[in-house]
C-alpha cells in the first residue's frame, strides 16, 4: 500500500494535524445535544456534561426519541415500517375473523330461536288438536 515507511508517517501526520472546524459546526453540535435532554438538563448542564437529573420518560420512550432525533421520523426506519405494517395487517385480519365468527354465532342463535319456536308451535298445536279430538 505504501512504498516506504516515510510515506505512511507523512500521511499519519497529515491526518492528525489540527484543522479548523467547518463553519457552524459548534452550533450544530450544541443544538443536537440539547434535543436529547430534559428542560432541567438544558438549563443546568452544559452540552456533553453528565447530569444527575433523571430523564422523566421511560427507557423505551427515550429510545424512540433518540431514533426520532437521528432519523427525523419513525417511519424512516425500515424495520419499524414493516413492524407497523405487519401489526396493521394482523389487526385487520383478526378483526375480520372475529366479526365473521360473531356473524356465524349470531346466525346459529337465530336458527336456534326459530327451531325453539317451531317446536313450541307444533307442541301447542298437538295439544290443541288432542283437546279438540277429545271434545269431539
Amino acid at each position: 500500500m505504501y512504498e516506504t515507511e516515510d510515506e505512511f508517517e507523512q500521511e499519519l501526520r497529515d491526518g492528525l494535524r489540527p484543522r479548523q472546524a467547518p463553519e457552524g459546526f459548534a452550533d450544530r453540535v450544541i443544538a443536537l445535544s440539547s434535543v436529547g435532554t430534559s428542560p432541567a438538563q438544558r438549563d443546568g448542564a452544559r452540552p456533553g456534561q453528565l447530569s444527575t437529573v433523571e430523564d422523566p420518560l421511560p427507557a423505551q420512550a427515550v429510545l424512540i426519541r433518540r431514533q426520532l432525533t437521528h432519523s427525523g421520523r419513525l417511519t424512516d426506519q425500515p424495520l419499524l415500517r414493516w413492524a407497523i405494517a405487519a401489526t396493521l395487517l394482523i389487526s385487520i385480519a383478526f378483526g375480520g375473523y372475529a366479526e365473521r365468527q360473531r356473524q356465524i354465532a349470531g346466525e346459529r342463535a337465530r336458527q336456534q330461536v326459530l327451531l325453539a319456536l317451531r317446536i313450541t308451535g307444533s307442541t301447542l298445536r298437538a295439544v290443541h288438536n288432542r283437546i279438540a279430538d277429545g271434545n269431539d
Partner: protein
Amino acid sequence: MKLRISTVILLVLCAAGAFAQSAPFPVTLEKELAARASNFTEVTLDKSMLSFASKFLNGKDSDDAKVRELIQKLDGIYVRSYEFDKDNQYTTAEVDSIRKQFAGSEWSPMVRERSKKGDGTDVFVKLVNGDIHGMFVLDAEPKELTFVFISGPIRPDDLNQLGGNFGIPRVGEDHSDDGSGKPKGGAK
C-alpha cells in the same frame, strides 16, 4: 352483629332476586332421557342469548321483526324433545316428578289431558297480575316426550301470529304434514 345479619339478609335477597330473574330450566332428567332417546333436540336460550339472537333478526323484515319483538321480552326459551324407538322408554313416575315441579302456587295448570294409553299433555302458566309470565308445556306420547319452557311475558296469540312463517305451525290449524314440526335426523 347487626351489620352481619343485615349483610346476610341482603345477600339472600340478592340471590333470590337473581334466581327469580333468570328461572332455570326445571326439568332434571335431561341426561337420562337423552341417553335413552334415539333422537333428541335440546335448545337452551337464556336472556343474553335471546338478546344476541335478536340482533341478527332483520328489523326491516316483518316476520323477523315479529320474532324479535316476541323474544326481546322473554327471559328464556328452553326446549327438550326426545324421540324413542320403542314405547315405555320413560316412566309415569318420571313425568310426574316433572309435573310436580309446577305444583307450586306460582304456576296454574291450564291444560291437563290424559289418555288411556298413559300419555298425556300438560300446560302450566305462571300468572302475574293476570298476565302470563311463563309457560311450561309437557307433551308425553308413547314414543315421544317434549318439554317447552318459556320464561317471561308471553301470550299464546304472539306465538300464533308467528304461525305460517319459518316453519312455525299455526295453533288450531290441522296441517297435513306429520304434525311434529320437529327436526328429523341428528341430535343436538
